[in-house]
């Protein structure tokens, strides 16, 4: 017999971390709330039973307001699940119980995993978990996913999760609400879900559940009957929270602990959230990251390039097309790795570091307000920040925005936010062959193009001017990141690079050799020569740009291939700059285009991709003309 278990909990509560502890290092553990907007599934066999674990986006309550809530709600009620693990926060138990009560209202068997027990104890909070278990009629198990404390016990409890059905705690509402629940329940039909639960959802104005009613007009009648209690929904929420707080208090023991006069957290926040200092520190951090990336990355690139040249000098496969193609493939692969790998990998390590330390969420708060220039809601900054890693997941994350217009606008802006592969081009090609100042100029040009694009888009896509600012994101506590966590997470984000990009680099080289052998190079180069003319680049430079669209990491290696490795002697610094700009503005690659099609439909995606690439080429051509005036 198999089990399907869903993990439910607030954002940033260690849900993904527990998921990892349960099934092995498969998912990204994020200290930044709102980065998981999908359900991840993984399976594990325990005592002859196959348990499928579903990790859901973090939510505070069952509702259909945000995308995270919609996804979790769907997983809870449309997937066939046997039970749920509610990850509860020992530091603020009542908040977790609120969500637990809602799941219990849906008569889904639960096991409560009590997390952060140690940090609660440090604050003088001790939870009597056995007492809580007795009250709830469900197992409550203290856990620590990092040390694996309680994981075995948790899994054992899951094997018997179905036993708890029907014996669990239910919130009792005021008589008038219970009366209304009863009346609405009698109208519920066509569903496996408990009638009481559906009635509650209906009374709480969750439109997804109206469909289960025999007669929708009945709700109005019920509400009219409650003329003396005009705010039923509010009453329900308040009672549920009140019950949660009452029970939490009952099982919580407070011990006095000496508190540090002013903790480091407070001082850090004071500096990082300062109205002026905050944004400055944010920008300084990113400049430092890029500086470190350029400095350390170029050292690694030196070593890798030397190694590549040595290796390639060893390989002489003889004459003939096959061996030439193989050689070109190997050269493409090795050069591509030397150019891209140091920067992409380092970037992910550093990005993960600031994310896990809890710094990223402060930076996001600092930058949010600037998005109002474009009438975008503050949370769009999350997508843009993710865009520094990879455009594909960043595009997917625009789902956390509210309207189609906002999503499209933000996704369009991603064409001017360099992803790690584009950062690698700027550093590994422009910086490596043209120097750090040239790389910096490309970054500045990208930033200007970002502002210009934002301004134009603001004119085209008219978003109602009242963007939601700071919609209650939680500021996670600062943490000292665990190295294991950072490596795992960076590796997961890097995986595509290794499994997808490395073979593509090889194929790119082979394809280039193939084009040369068939005499087809000119078929690409000649018709596109107006572009290279506009950019003042050698005709052959179009090859890396075209290949770059297939996979951005091909750009660097193809440039070296067509120029015979002698970038700095063939191209002037201004040409290196122009190439850098042209290669980095625009929807970066075919995978990103695929994601755009998925999110916005074929027509819009193709239109946006084509326009963004044209915009990049136009911008690059104008930029070098402008610079050469001086």
């Amino acid at each position, binding site marked *: 017999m198999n089990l399907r278990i869903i993990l439910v909990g607030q954002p940033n509560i260690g849900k993904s971390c527990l998921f990892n502890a349960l099934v092995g290092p498969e998912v990204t553990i994020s200290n930044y709330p709102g980065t998981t907007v999908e359900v991840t599934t993984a399976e594990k066999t325990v005592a002859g039973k196959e348990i499928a674990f579903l990790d859901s986006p973090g939510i*505070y*309550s069952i*509702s259909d*307001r945000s995308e995270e809530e919609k996804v979790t709600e769907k997983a809870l009620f449309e997937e066939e699940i046997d039970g749920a693990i509610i990850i509860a926060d020992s*530091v*603020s138990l*009542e*908040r977790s119980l*609120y*969500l637990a009560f809602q799941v219990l209202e849906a008569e889904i068997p639960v096991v409560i995993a009590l997390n952060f027990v140690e940090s609660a104890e440090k*604050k003088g909070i001790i939870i009597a978990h056995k007492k809580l278990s007795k009250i709830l009629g469900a197992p409550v198990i203290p856990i620590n996913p990092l040390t694996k404390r309680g994981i075995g016990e948790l899994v054992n409890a899951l094997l018997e999760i179905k036993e708890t059905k029907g014996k669990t705690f239910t919130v009792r509402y005021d008589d008038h609400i219970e009366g209304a629940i009863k009346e609405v329940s009698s109208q519920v039909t066509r569903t496996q879900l408990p009638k009481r639960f559906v009635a509650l959802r209906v009374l*709480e*104005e969750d439109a997804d559940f109206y469909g289960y009613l025999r007669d929708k007009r009945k709700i109005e009648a019920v509400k009219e009957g409650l003329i*003396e*209690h005009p705010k039923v*929904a*509010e009453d329900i*929420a*308040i009672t*549920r*929270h*009140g019950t949660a*707080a009452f029970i939490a208090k009952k099982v919580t023991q407070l011990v006095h602990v000496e508190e540090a006069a002013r903790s480091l957290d*407070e001082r850090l*926040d*004071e500096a990082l*959230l300062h*109205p002026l200092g*905050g944004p400055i520190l944010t920008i300084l951090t990113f400049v430092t990251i890029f500086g470190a990336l350029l400095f350390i990355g170029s050292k690694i690139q030196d070593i890798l390039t030397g190694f590549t040249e040595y290796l390639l000098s060893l390989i002489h496969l003889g004459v003939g097309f096959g061996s030439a193609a193989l050689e070109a493939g190997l050269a493409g692969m090795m050069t591509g790795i030397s150019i891209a790998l140091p920067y992409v990998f380092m970037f992910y390590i550093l990005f993960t570091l600031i994310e896990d330390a809890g710094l990223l969420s402060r930076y996001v*708060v600092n930058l949010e*307000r600037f998005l109002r220039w474009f009438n975008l809601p*503050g949370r769009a900054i999350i997508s843009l920040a993710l865009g520094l890693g990879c455009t594909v997941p960043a595009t997917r994350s625009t789902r956390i925005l509210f309207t189609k217009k906002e999503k499209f606008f933000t996704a369009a802006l991603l064409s001017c936010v360099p992803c790690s592969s584009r950062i690698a081009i700027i550093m590994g090609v422009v910086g490596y062959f043209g120097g750090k100042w040239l790389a910096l100029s490309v970054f500045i040009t990208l930033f200007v193009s970002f502002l210009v694009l934002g301004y134009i888009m603001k004119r085209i896509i008219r978003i109602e001017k009242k963007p*939601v*600012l*700071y*919609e*209650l*994101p*939680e*500021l996670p*506590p600062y943490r000292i990141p665990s190295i294991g966590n950072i490596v795992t997470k960076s590796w997961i984000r890097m995986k595509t690079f290794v499994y997808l990009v490395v073979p593509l680099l090889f194929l790119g080289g082979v394809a280039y050799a193939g084009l040369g052998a068939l005499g087809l190079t000119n078929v690409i180069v000649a018709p596109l020569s107006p572009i290279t003319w506009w950019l003042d680049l050698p005709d052959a430079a179009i090859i890396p740009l075209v290949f770059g669209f297939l996979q951005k990491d091909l750009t660097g290696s193809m440039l070296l291939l067509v120029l015979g490795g002698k970038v700095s002697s063939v191209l002037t610094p201004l040409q290196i700059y122009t190439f850098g700009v042209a290669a980095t503005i625009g929807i970066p690659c075919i995978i990103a285009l695929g994601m755009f099609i998925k999110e916005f439909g074929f027509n819009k995606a193709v239109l946006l991709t084509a326009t963004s690439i044209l915009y990049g080429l136009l911008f690059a051509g104008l930029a070098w003309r402008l610079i050469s005036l001086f």
Partner: protein
Amino acid sequence: MTEESDILRIVEEDILRILGEEKSKRVSLESIKSEIKVAYLFISNAIKELEREGLVQSQGDFIVLTKEGAGKAENIVKRHLVLENYFKIKGTKREREVHKMTDILEHYISKEVIENIKKLSTFKTEGIPLTKLELNKEGIITDILFPDYGLFERIVSMGIVPSEKIKVIYKIPDGMVIYVGGKKFVLGNDIAKGIEALG
């Protein structure tokens, strides 16, 4: 026992209140009759008395407030509202009882007591929006006012509820960082305006 003259005064005050609550300051005799459930004789006598004092005028089937009467009516309406609000303790919604108590007591209560009640009820229920709460001073949430249930529920489920302690720890442009139940949240001023607390 209520004296006859007392009844007359009560009916007079009620008529003035009914007129004062009406925007046009003009009410039909018929609706006055249906609202004040006493013998018609008392009503007609009260109207005659009010006319004699120059507070109301009869216009066919309608009664209209004079300028002088409007001033007096306004005070009576205010008194009624203060009492009604005082009895309407948050959370309990026994409206009929509240109305009954108000309707009786308003005629017997002195100006001074009304003033005291006014002070008391502002002390009891009126918090100030978080945007005006002093920095780093612990307050207690008194009310959450949102027209949209979705946002309301989200806020409640995060533990931001009446009677919970709250502290505004930093102001940031157009927003603030609050500390509630051991957690920090960033809150835009637009949302913070809807959360009231006692400093």
